[in-house]
Structures are given as structure tokens and as C-alpha cells.
């Protein structure tokens, strides 16, 4: 796992490019950041409009998903962007939602912020992929405010969460202290309720089912018992 910062319960938002794996502990830790992103990206269907949030979700655009035509939408009005460009080749006028200098694919178009969120609110985003602090079995999630804080960082998360056709979440399965992030009810203030369809963690792929989470897939070396021990809500086998 990535080294979390003390007192900051958000490894899911650690800087891009860090890699995970077995973390040198001998104990399998499952998927790394790119593998989590890859697993969700494989769910993207041909023709989808996909919005990627800051952090691990931006890694989804690195995933090779064959000849499926995916249009990546960034909240700042960039429609149809492609991979991040290396230093020296970037266009400083062109950033994605995370401020990374991306490229454009043929057929790209630019709109202003009101039109960009018009696209979001009118339900045209097939899926938004976001990081989070917590996801509940009922499909609620929290990603804008940490416990005890006066303010927070919402960005486009509430608009996307309320209006996209589907919300996919990527997060580490537990906090650095080992506390579960997949829970029965969110303890933190929620970003939206009942909207999460799929959750990728380092331990596997899960779907909120109301009373608990369905296990869609476990990462290599992760047992159901290990996943259950790390989860704050029931886990159901099968789909």
C-alpha cells in the first residue's frame, strides 16, 4: 500500500503514479492502483461518456479496452481527451479535472463550465469514477469532508454523484489504521445517497446491495474471509 500521511485518511487520493502490490509484507495486498483502475475500466461499454475524478480514477484512461469508443469528459469542459502527455510535450492550456496536461482525441470539443455541468446534470454521463473515504452498503458514499472538519472539498463530486447514470468508486479497502471503508452506513457527511453501482478496492470488485456488498471478483491471493475481515458490512458471494 502507499504510505498514508498521518491523520489523513485518504490513501485513495495519494499522488498519481505511486504503485502498490504486495507491499513487502509477505501478506498479499491485492491490486495496485493501476489494477484497480483497469478493473473498473473493463466495465466501460462501447459509446459511453465517462467522467474521471481526481486521483486513481484518472488512471482509467491508461487502460487498454480494445476498440470500444469511450469519450472522456472532464468537468472543466474538455470533451474527448486522451492520455496525459509527458513533460515537454504538454499543452499548458489543456488540463483534465486533476490539472494534468492531457491530449485530445479526434472529435474533441470544448465547452464552458455551465455547459459542462449541463451535460452532467442532464444525465449524459454514463459513468463517473471517483475516489472516496467511505461507501455504504446502500450505495451512499462520502468524499468531500473529513470528520471534524469545518469545510471540505466538493468540486464537481456532488453534481456528478447526483446526476451520472452510474457512480463507480475506487478506494483502498481500509484506512491506514485498518478500519473498513466499505461500511453499513457512512459516518462522514455523504456526497450523495444510493448512487454507487460498483466499488473497486485493492481487495476486489464489490457492488452495494442494500444490506451488504456482493463480491463480484477478488484480487489474486485475497480470500473471501480476508475480505470479510476488512469490510464493515456483510459480503455476499456470487453476483
Amino acid at each position, binding site marked *: 500500500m502507499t504510505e498514508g500521511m498521518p491523520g489523513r485518511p485518504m490513501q485513495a487520493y495519494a499522488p498519481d503514479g505511486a504503485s502498490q502490490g504486495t507491499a513487502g509484507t509477505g501478506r498479499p495486498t491485492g491490486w495496485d492502483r493501476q489494477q484497480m483502475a483497469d478493473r473498473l475500466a473493463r466495465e466501460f461499454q462501447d459509446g459511453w461518456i465517462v467522467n474521471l475524478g481526481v486521483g486513481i480514477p484518472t488512471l482509467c484512461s491508461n487502460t487498454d479496452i480494445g476498440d470500444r469508443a469511450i469519450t472522456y469528459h472532464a468537468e472543466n469542459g474538455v470533451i474527448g481527451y486522451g492520455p496525459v502527455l509527458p513533460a515537454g510535450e504538454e499543452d499548458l492550456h489543456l488540463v483534465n479535472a486533476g490539472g494534468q496536461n492531457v491530449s485530445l482525441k479526434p472529435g474533441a470539443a470544448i465547452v*464552458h463550465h455551465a455547459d459542462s455541468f449541463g451535460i452532467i446534470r442532464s444525465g449524459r454521463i454514463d459513468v463517473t469514477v471517483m475516489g472516496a473515504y467511505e461507501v455504504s452498503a446502500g450505495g451512499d458514499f462520502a468524499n468531500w469532508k473529513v470528520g471534524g472538519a469545518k469545510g471540505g472539498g466538493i468540486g464537481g463530486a456532488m453534481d456528478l454523484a447526483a446526476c451520472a447514470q452510474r457512480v463507480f468508486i475506487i478506494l483502498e479497502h481500509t484506512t491506514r489504521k485498518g478500519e473498513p471503508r466499505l461500511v453499513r452506513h457512512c459516518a462522514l457527511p455523504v456526497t450523495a445517497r444510493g448512487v454507487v453501482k460498483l466499488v473497486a478496492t485493492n481487495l476486489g470488485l464489490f457492488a452495494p446491495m442494500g444490506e451488504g456488498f456482493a463480491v463480484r471478483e477478488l484480487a489474486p491471493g485475497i480470500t473471501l474471509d480476508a475480505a470479510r475481515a476488512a469490510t464493515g458490512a456483510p459480503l455476499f458471494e456470487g453476483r
Partner: protein
Amino acid sequence: MAASKIVESFAAAVADIPDGAVIAFGGFAGPGTPYNLTKALLEQGAKRLTCIANTTGGAHQPRLPDLGMLVENGQVAKVVCSFTAATRPTDVLPFTRYYESGEVEAELVPQGTLAERLRAAGAGIPAFYTPTAVGTELAEGRETRVINGREYLLEYALPCDVAFIRAWRADTAGNLQFRLAQRNFCPLMAMAAKLAIVEVEEDILPAGAMDPDQVHLSGLFVHRLVKVPPPPEGLWTVRRQERAR
């Protein structure tokens, strides 16, 4: 003849901004950010400002003039934005401390609602309903309405006195073109403002040189244009070769 919209310096362009003004700052993660106008306002010193922006800045190094510096300079009474804290723990916003301690007031607004409230102000729409933030802490105690079976939150227009924005090209009539992700909030803030001040990257064109179909913001919304000078005087000057697509 109408007065020219071209102003010779950033200092002159912001000289008459009074204490207590409501100012919107364009930009999203760099492009469209009015660094030069912000620097001029730091030097001008207007106080008790209400500042509208997506973020308060200061998360990245090297740091350029931003809203957080106006806060640190004691010029800001209130901020309206979609981040009072960073989402990444590795990013720490200078503003957060001022807000948490109560020195500066803040209104935290979801980004799409912020854009739409500015757009509404510019379009003469005093209020609208939105699905965003329903069921969250932000909606507590606020007016909602069920329309066609779904619950929506009432939101009000967000007009401002002044907009600071940055554009790629302008003509003397004030027509603007933004380049790529530079557009973001900029046209909306100009439309929401009584006074729109623009820092312009390229040399200002004569009226008639811009294709009317390719104008992103009509000069009707634009009052003052200042050309960003070459470095070191001009901040965040984007070199031509970096613009090749």
C-alpha cells in the same frame, strides 16, 4: 465613438475597485486564471472583498498570485467556492486555516451549482432548481421542491461586481476567444459581472479581425482589456511553441 476598452496597465485596470466589492476569479487548474490582475489587486489593497472562484489556490508550487494570497493579505471577508479544503491530503490550501479559525467566511458550493449560479446571474434568471446536493449536509434546512417525482434544491443567482478573467485573444470591441481548457468559468463570470476585466495573452486585434462565429464571449460583456506583457513582468506567459496542437 465609444471609449476604448484597452487599458495600459493592470494597476490602472483595477484602480477603482472599492472595498467591499464582490469579485469573481476565472480559471481552473491554471488555464484562464487571472494571475496578473490578482497581483495588481494585491498591490491595490481593496479590503472586505467577497471572492468567488472554484478554488482558493495555493495548493501547488511555485505559487503564483491567487485568492489565498488576498486572504493572507487581509483583503478578503468571504469566499464562495467549491473547495475550502483540498481533496488530496498532499495538497494543503493556505485558505483552510483562515476558514477553520473563523477569520474569513466561506460559502461552499458544488462546482456545477457555482457555474450555474453565475450563468443564471448573467442570464437574468434570479433562481433555479437543481438535483445537486439534495440529501446532503449542504441541503439541510434549505428549500426543496419535488418536480416530476424528484426532489430539487432551490439555488439563487450569484451576481458579482467585477470579474477577473484571462483569455487567449481579444479584439478592440472586447470579443474574446479562449483556448482549450482556458474557457472554464471565464465567460460565465464575465456575464455575471457589472465590470469584466480581462488579461489577454495575444496582441489585441482590431475589431473585425475575429470571425463572428468564433467569438466565445461577446464584447458586450467585456469592459477592460489588458495585454499580458512578456516575462518577467507578465505572469504565466504561455509561449507560442507550447500552443502547437
